[in-house]
């Protein structure tokens, strides 16, 4: 990863080359990840140091960079060894042991009940664990490469600069074409529906700089100004670097095809319907007469009205009430958890029997969303999860 440039002379003579390298990235693979984050270690040879005066900042940087390189090297080595050990433990071939295999092995060997996934044990490549750092921003005399070095966030301001440049280019183009009497091509118009501008945290990763909220809003404003231009399609490539597609969830989820049972009816079984600590599997049969059986009982499995209403909602919403039969097996949890689990199962199964439009409105109604809320633990020194004991003066 690291581009090592041996010899101070090389640095001196090819400063412009180095500058370019710093800006655009050392290797093509690195460029795709983070074009601004490059590691360039400028190693001064002893002879050259004697000849040329090296600034203190450069010296400190070189030391730091060397240390970092050494550190990463050992980390990589350890990672490789660890990977081989793990592969041997799992009885797999170390050469073809992938990151996915590592994750599975870790999950198997160190099972963790911790809620947060980030808190669970993991083994990842050091490149992922240790964030990329900026390369040398100044030469051996302490002179910065970048003209915007003293802004503190050269990459960010360079980006704003680029945006304005693109905008100006398009303005000029527009004027030229207007003089010729041309109008922008309607067919090529830039369509950004289904896309959004890169969120702040991703932009920060890309720039390897932390930016303030107001700076991000400046970025957003200037990008929007650029996108709104009639000839924005001319700089499509540039704009698309900062756009992220919005996912249409219900389109993404694959809708299972109904199967046919002995009586020739279509049916869908949804397994793993979860809510709180209840889990259910729900079978929906079409056509039916509205029969419902929960653990072999009728709807009075739920004596409470609100629980029965839970089951009613997806059916009534999708206007399938009385058109399908439902069988559910449910265990664990209490009545409201169980009814919630069955409700989700019914809604998920009904997708196979209704049209795309209805699925989308079901999704918007929140019927297809899994409810992840669970009971919050009681805290010591408190009466409950949040409630404190009654305060008494003495």
């Amino acid at each position, binding site marked *: 990863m690291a581009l090592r440039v041996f010899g101070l002379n090389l640095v001196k003579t090819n400063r412009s080359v180095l500058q370019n390298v710093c800006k655009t990235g050392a290797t093509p693979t690195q460029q795709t990840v983070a074009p601004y984050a490059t590691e360039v270690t400028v190693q001064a040879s002893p002879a050259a140091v004697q000849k040329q005066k090296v600034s203190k900042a450069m010296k400190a940087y070189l030391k730091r960079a060397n240390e970092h390189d050494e550190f990463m090297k050992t980390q990589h080595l350890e990672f490789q060894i660890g990977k081989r050990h793990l592969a041997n433990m799992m009885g797999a071939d170390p050469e073809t042991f992938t990151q996915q295999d590592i994750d599975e092995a870790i999950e198997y060997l160190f099972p963790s009940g911790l809620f947060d996934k980030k808190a669970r044990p993991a083994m990842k490549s050091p490149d992922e664990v240790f964030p990329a750092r900026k390369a040398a921003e100044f030469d051996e005399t302490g002179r910065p490469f970048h003209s915007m070095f003293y802004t503190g966030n050269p990459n960010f301001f360079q980006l704003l600069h680029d945006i304005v440049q693109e905008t100006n280019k398009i303005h000029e183009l527009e004027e030229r074409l207007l003089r010729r009497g041309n109008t922008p091509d309607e067919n090529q118009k830039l369509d950004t529906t289904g896309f959004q501008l890169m969120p702040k945290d991703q932009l920060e990763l890309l720039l390897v700089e932390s930016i303030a909220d107001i700076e991000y809003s400046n970025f957003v404003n200037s990008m929007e100004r650029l996108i709104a231009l009639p000839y924005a399609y001319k700089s499509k490539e540039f704009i698309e670097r900062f756009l992220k597609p919005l996912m249409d969830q219900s389109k993404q989820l694959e809708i299972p095809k109904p199967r046919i049972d002995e009586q020739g009816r279509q049916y869908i079984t949804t397994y793993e319907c979860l809510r709180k600590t209840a889990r259910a599997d729900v079978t929906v049969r079409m056509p039916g007469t*509205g029969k*419902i059986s929960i653990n072999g009982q*009728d*709807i*009075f499995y739920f004596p409470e*009205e609100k629980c*029965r*209403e*839970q*089951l*009613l*909602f997806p*059916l*009534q919403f999708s206007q399938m*009430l*009385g058109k399908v039969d439902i069988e559910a097996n449910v265990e664990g949890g209490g009545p409201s958890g169980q009814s919630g689990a069955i409700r989700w199962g019914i809604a998920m199964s009904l997708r196979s029997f209704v049209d795309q439009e209805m699925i989308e409105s079901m999704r918007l109604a929140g019927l297809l969303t899994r409810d992840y809320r669970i009971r919050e633990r009681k805290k010591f020194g408190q009466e409950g999860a949040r409630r404190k004991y009654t305060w008494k003066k003495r």
Partner: protein
Amino acid sequence: MFRRQVASLSRLQHLQMSTNAAPAPTSTSASSGEAISEFRTAVTNPGEHSSLHVAKFYTIPVEQKKKIFGGGGLPKQYEQQIKTFQEACLMVRSPALELLHYIQNADLSKPAVRYVVYGANGVGKTLTMAHVLHYGSLNDFMLVHVPWVPNWMKRPKEAANSSTQEGFIDLPFDAAAWLVHFKTQNLKLLQQLDLKTSKEYVWSKRESTPAGSTLLELVEHGIARIKYASETTAALISEIKQLSNAGKCKTMVVIDGFNAFFHPETRIFSENKQRVTPDRITLTQPFLDITSYDWTNGICILSVDKIAMTEGYMASHMPRYLLGKEGFEHLDPFIPVHVENYTEKEFYNYISYYLDRRWINKTPPGFEEQLKFMSNKNPYELMQLVKSL
């Protein structure tokens, strides 16, 4: 969610109310005999009901209702509904018709036949029996009707030690209340028929009822001297049995919650602070006697009910479970009559009845289907659900 949707449409409904008002008076005037709605029948005599009238409502005249059900016999919430709707309407349903069919074709000279009405909670067992009770009252049956046995076992007005039987418990107020109920139901028959006691009953040194006095005198004595009400009840029932055997009257025994007689325990405490079993209560034995098969000119209609039991004994609604071995053997052989949830037709008729009574005011599209799903066509649940509409 369901309720919210109904509520959101309620505003709309108010606008429609004015348009609905026009046809409503014609349907409410059904009682006056001009036009009869589809879901009603003008035949008010249960003896004439046939499968033609299934799922239709008939009205019990006010004075008859007061006479038969004055002392209980209709569920409390149904009574409230009757009061609200200003008419006592019963739906003709197939279990009641089945029972009536059996009774009409029964040979009364044969030993008494026992019918056991059973079914899940809130399916209309009591109202089925009310229908039959109405028939019995109109057809000169002597009614021995216990509206709800668990009232005696679970919350008696007063419990006292029996003076005649050692270790037994009397329920004087409940027995007297039952005697009053018996008297109001059968006053006409008691006056008309020549019913005399067969032997002398000595209550105390000074008080006695001589042989040959009328049953009415016996009953009135029990009501006046509450202390002896339990013994009077026992005497009355044995007299009725003898008179029926002799062919002087025909008797219909209707006991709701009969399985409470065989419950493992009651909520009554004896002297030594122990819960007593139902067989230690003086009222139990006479009613068990009259439900046995060793007499003629009688019909027994008994219901077994989950709610008559207490917690821990409510796993099933089937007669064998609820009666236990002892009770089952006592009744064996009997004719089971299963009461089920509404059929489609009954359900929709009930909805139209509620609409007719303006009990349901909010009618968003598809509300019937929603009610059907929510109530599973269970009568009691339907009644509860439409309360808020």
